[in-house]
């Protein structure tokens, strides 16, 4: 990042109403930053194309309804996995692997349903044909063409993914230099997994939000894992690693990250790859995506 002289573009839609409060970032980087203002642009579209936004809201509501069933299915499948682990504590145990496969099937079904809803909306709503959306997309393309890199901040990962997808920013980012952190890194990966083991009401059951944009293939990022995941228990590590396989479950902590050739940056223990045997270690080789960096 030190070679950047600016300007750079910023996606901070995950900050929602605070999207444009990017002064601290400007101050820290000392670069000219062009905020793509996706959250604000969507608010503008709500006024300019209410029928399109209504169709989008219907799609999101259907996704939410499917998610209720998905969560119900996760509860029983996860209980099955935990029971198998408690019996043998052996990730090679065929019953454990079978139980994981059952959960993976549930995950696959949900993601396929989400794909179907997104595709239906794209085919019937045709958002990219709407003049108001086209105007925003043209502005985004023009901005990106004048920037050295694109920064993608975290925040509300659902809103971030949703807004980027609505305006086709995921497509516009291909081939560009990307620097993403926290939720921003999550959306660039193949899949977006939600997790929190320390909520007021106990352990939340991890679930997929949706597919990521696949700009960083082969991984599921787990930012702030130390604060959000109980990785001291080998079964938690083993189950997470086995569940996301063949993708890699990779933690991202403050002070470290991964470069475009898969090399670790900063603090050595900030990036850990969860292993199916219940341990975690350094990132294994073979992770190359050509973008700049993903950080927590």
């Amino acid at each position, binding site marked *: 990042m030190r070679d950047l002289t600016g300007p750079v573009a910023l996606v901070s839609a995950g900050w929602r109403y605070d999207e444009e409060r990017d002064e601290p970032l400007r101050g820290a980087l000392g670069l000219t930053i062009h905020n793509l203002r996706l959250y604000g642009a969507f608010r503008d579209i709500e006024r300019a194309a209410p029928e399109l936004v209504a169709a989008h809201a219907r799609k999101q509501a259907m996704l939410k309804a499917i998610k209720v069933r998905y969560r119900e299915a996760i509860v029983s499948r996860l209980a099955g996995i935990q029971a198998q682990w408690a019996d043998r504590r052996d990730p090679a145990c065929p019953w454990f692997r079978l139980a994981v496969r059952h959960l993976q099937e549930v995950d696959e079904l949900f993601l396929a349903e989400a794909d179907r809803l997104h595709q239906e909306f794209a085919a019937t709503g045709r958002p990219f044909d709407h003049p108001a959306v086209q105007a925003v997309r043209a502005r985004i393309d023009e901005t990106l063409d004048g920037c050295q890199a694109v920064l993608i901040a975290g925040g509300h990962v659902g809103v971030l993914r949703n807004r980027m997808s609505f305006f086709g920013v995921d497509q516009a980012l291909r081939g560009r230099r990307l620097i993403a952190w926290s939720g921003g890194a999550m959306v660039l990966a193949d899949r977006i997994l939600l997790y929190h083991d320390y*909520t007021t009401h106990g352990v939340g059951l991890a679930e997929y939000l949706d597919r990521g944009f696949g700009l960083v293939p082969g991984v599921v990022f787990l930012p702030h894992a130390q604060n959000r995941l109980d990785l001291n228990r080998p079964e938690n590590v083993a189950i997470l690693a086995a569940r996301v396989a063949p993708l890699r479950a990779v933690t991202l902590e403050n002070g470290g990250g991964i470069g475009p050739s898969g090399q670790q940056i900063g603090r050595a223990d900030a990036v850990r790859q969860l292993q199916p045997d219940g341990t975690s270690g350094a990132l294994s080789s073979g992770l190359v995506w050509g973008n700049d960096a993903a950080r927590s």
Partner: protein
Amino acid sequence: MQRVLDLAVAIERKPQDARRILAEFVARWQFPLMDSQDNATFFYWDGMPADAVFLQHWVFGLPSRQEFRRIGNTDAFYLPLDLPRGARVEYKFEVVRNGNGRWMHDPRNARRAFDPFGSNSVCPAGSYIDPEWCLYDPQSRQGEMQTHRFFSKSWGEDREYRLYVPAEARAGKEYPLLIVHDGADFLHYAEMKTLLDNLIHRHEVAPLLVCFTSGVRRNWEYAANPRQADFLKLDLLAHLQSTQPVLDEPQFRGLMGASFGGVSALHAAVRHPGTWGRLLLQSGSFAFTDIGEHTRGPMWDPIVNFVNHFRENPPAIAAKIYLSCGTFESLIYYNRSLVPVFQQVSDGVRFAEVPDGHNWINWRDRLREALTWLFPGPLWMYYE
């Protein structure tokens, strides 16, 4: 306790120096003395003659008036008391002189808990800590407090309420609604504005509108009174729906109350089924009888009637209920007894019992667990 025993030994050795030894002792330590995590020793000495000292507290199950022991021939007194882990005890001293008892705060303990009747001294067990989420946090965005008046048909008079509007409120967006009984007291004694700011800012609780209403003839209005139930739905809710951006489904509407306020909230949910999808009931005064008459006085008659009927034939009420009670309260029996009844009519019941009493700090300390259960925020989705 050991420190008091050492003190007694020192005085016994040099009784002529008792006054100096006591002065040094009170200057050295904080009171009540905590010998270990949860063993408290209360201490009283003001340098003047006293006949006796008593501890007055509000812990159900213990004698409410416990006599201190005198140290030698001095006018210093002490009383050891084991506290449950994490407990908070509110108390006063009664100092008897010339046959006359006078209640007072513990003069050597600055910690106070306030309520509408005044304040008490507070003895937190060593393992109790004030939750950080209810303390002012400059990072948290400040919601806005508004004051409104409107005419209530049910009461035939104007009623005032205060409305909490979350910092993120934006035109065109609608929000869940929570109506709070004894609202002015919850704001004043339970720091509810501060903790709402914190919990919403941290994404633990959904941004919501909170209406703080207070009774005028409070105990009568809140004692399972049908006019109060009608006031809440037909007057206050209708008024809020016409003037504020509130979401219109029951799962986004909550009622909350403590003590008699808890009774009013439950009664309103029973009288108007399908209206309130979330109930937050703290130390509810849910007195009932299995046989015979109750002995709590005529003000409780409608409550006992209501709860007896509710237990006999519990109707489906809110989809989610949060219930809490202190184990030092006489009401713990009633609240525990209602948990299985609530579980018959709701799949989403959470019950918490804690070593605390019938007081605002107890109710404040439960609000994170309660609000995150009833109105969970998007914490799950935030990675920043």
